[in-house]
């Protein structure tokens, strides 16, 4: 590179090579941009179109108005799925954050065998629910699992029958979900904790601040970005939870543990009601957008100005 070029980085020479060099960043992200527009938003539009057709077995492009949405909101099962998503999503995200933070703080106490313990918390992430579903099903099954083991130990009053109870079954899905995802959140938080400058904490201690105060006033606030990243990832996992429910309960008893994702799949593919399935996907997406967008917007603004 010549001296002249560096002095005029804006490319006053206007040669072809300079133009390419200047456009290079945009050229590099262009394929991703196109992929995003076509395969994310294009397909969302495609789904929206389908949701306004009478499509059944295969897509059929005949306009049918908002009939599918009327059917969808007249469907008890859909309302139950939404309600389950609220319970599951809320508890799952909150519990994973709490559990992840707790585990990270515990692991950060300079304990022995940290490597081993960390691996134990992380390994569930390596397994898909096709793999662990049966094991979880057994553990939660009162006649062979946890309840039986505890009863056999002599605690005959112990009962843990949630997976058989239509009212409680969604909570067992939460338990298995936490098991799988909290380790990842733990890793994020642990990384955050390790990234905090020790000298600040030392200074605070010299000033006489107690450990709880330091956590509350210094450490937790500095973990704010971690909360954000974790929340985004957990929200993704919660909305898309599909294998989890399928492997653990099959949506049952009855359809008591249905989530929107399983609802959508069942109607679109098993029941040959693609139009209805598409409508449910669009409603799901709108719910996500209405929750995530304001949150993301405020975080992005914050990080830019902060």
């Amino acid at each position: 590179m010549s001296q002249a070029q560096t002095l005029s980085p804006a490319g006053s020479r206007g040669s072809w090579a300079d133009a390419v060099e200047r456009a290079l960043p945009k050229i590099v992200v262009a394929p991703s941009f196109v992929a995003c527009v076509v395969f994310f938003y294009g397909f969302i539009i495609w789904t929206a179109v389908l949701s306004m057709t009478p499509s059944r077995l295969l897509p059929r492009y005949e306009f049918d108005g908002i009939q599918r949405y009327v059917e969808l909101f007249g469907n008890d099962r859909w309302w139950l799925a939404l309600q389950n998503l609220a319970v599951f999503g809320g508890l799952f995200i909150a519990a994973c954050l709490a559990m992840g933070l707790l585990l990270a703080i515990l692991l950060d106490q300079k304990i022995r065998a940290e490597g081993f313990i960390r691996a134990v918390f992380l390994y569930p992430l390596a397994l898909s629910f096709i793999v662990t579903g049966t094991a979880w099903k057994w553990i939660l099954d009162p006649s062979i699992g946890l309840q039986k083991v505890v009863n056999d130990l002599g605690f005959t009053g112990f009962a843990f029958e949630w997976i058989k109870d239509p009212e409680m079954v969604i909570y067992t899905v939460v338990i298995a979900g936490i098991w799988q995802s909290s380790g990842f959140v733990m890793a994020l938080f642990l990384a955050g904790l390790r990234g905090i400058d020790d000298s600040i904490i030392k200074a605070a201690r010299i000033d006489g601040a107690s450990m709880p105060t330091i956590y509350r006033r210094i450490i937790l606030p500095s973990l704010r970005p971690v909360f954000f990243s974790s929340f985004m990832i957990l929200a993704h996992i919660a909305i898309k939870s599909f294998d989890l429910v399928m492997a653990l309960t099959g949506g049952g008893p009855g359809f008591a543990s249905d989530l929107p994702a399983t609802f959508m799949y069942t109607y679109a593919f098993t029941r040959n009601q693609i139009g209805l399935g598409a409508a449910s996907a669009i409603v799901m997406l709108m719910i996500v957008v209405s929750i995530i967008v304001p949150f993301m917007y405020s975080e992005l603004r914050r990080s830019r100005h902060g």
Partner: protein
Amino acid sequence: MFKLKLAAIAVATLGMHAAGAAEVEVLHWWTSGGEAKSAAELKKMVEARGNKWKDFAVAGGGGENAMTVLKSRVVSGKAPTAAQVKGPSIQEWGAEGVLANLDSTAKANNWDGLLPGVVANVMKYKGSYVAVPVNVHRVNWMWVNPEVFKKAGAEVPKTWADFPAAAEKLQKAGFIPVAHGGQPWQDFTVFESIVLGVGGAKFYEDSMVKLDPKALSSPTMEKVFDTFRSVRKYIDKDAANRDWNLATAMVINGKAGMQFMGDWAKGEFTAAGKVPGKDYLCLAAPGTEKSFTFNIDSFIVFKQQGADAPKAQSDFAAAVMSPEFQEVFNLNKGSIPVRSGVSMAKFDDCAKTSAKDFADTAKGGGLVPSIAHQMAVPAATTGAIQDVVTSFFNSSQSSKDAVAKLAAAAKTK
């Protein structure tokens, strides 16, 4: 519009298949030991006729995953040669205009003469064969552990009216009267046997096949739900989401007295070394002795590119219907041959009873499609009705409310 597009894609991919032996790609969900063995026989026969078999197995549920894959395949313009699809779904696929025609094969092999009319109709779209049947499962079976009944001093129920007394005795003696797995399709399986047993074959046909509103909201239907509720009293509280074969195991090892399940349950008894008639009994569900709910596996064939495709499809279909395959496959699978003219000599007693009842009911009436196994009405309607049945079973809803919901669900299109 869409069909045009499909056709365009089909044309675009035309000629992509290599010349030489025609490839027969078969999408199926037979992956367990016995089923895989029988499918391997089919492969041998198809290859013996100079074709190449390309296996495409996707298990899961009653083929839910396979259906997802199949739809994607057809949309992408790469439909398999044949796919395991059954019941009214055959007509739904037919309506999409993507199926091939098997009429010449059917004529050459006299399918109309070999298949009962009810069955042949399921295989046709607008009067033409588009599918080939593989086997017949009987769904209205009751599997009984006679030892348990003896110990409890109970009689095996012959009608649903007898059922509560027998179940009560079993329960008093410390047994679980009915082994059940609380999954929607299993709830539905029990339900349809009750519809058949309480209302009879005509009522079953009116309500579950023709979806006649009068039958659906009749007092008989209310009685069906009442009976269904009484069965609920006699299953154990851990039944929810249990696999059917674990429920069968409860009958096998004497924890439970009976199970209502199709004839695939026999495989579990056989695997445990049990002998029919001695260690276990296979009887028609109460009050359904003169009827037969069928669940028939079949293959639909797709329009293909390439001049050699029709011959390969015809070879495949002919092989499926051949007496040799029907015998070996059904011996492995626990079902019975769908066509007449297959020797039953090697089959066990349960299968012999089943085959006899199949032939009798085909002639004398009482041969009805199983709604729980997607043989009676389109998938959307089946699903909506299943939702009603399973949520009744898992709640304390009244029979009256359930009847009203049922009638509403039957209108789902």
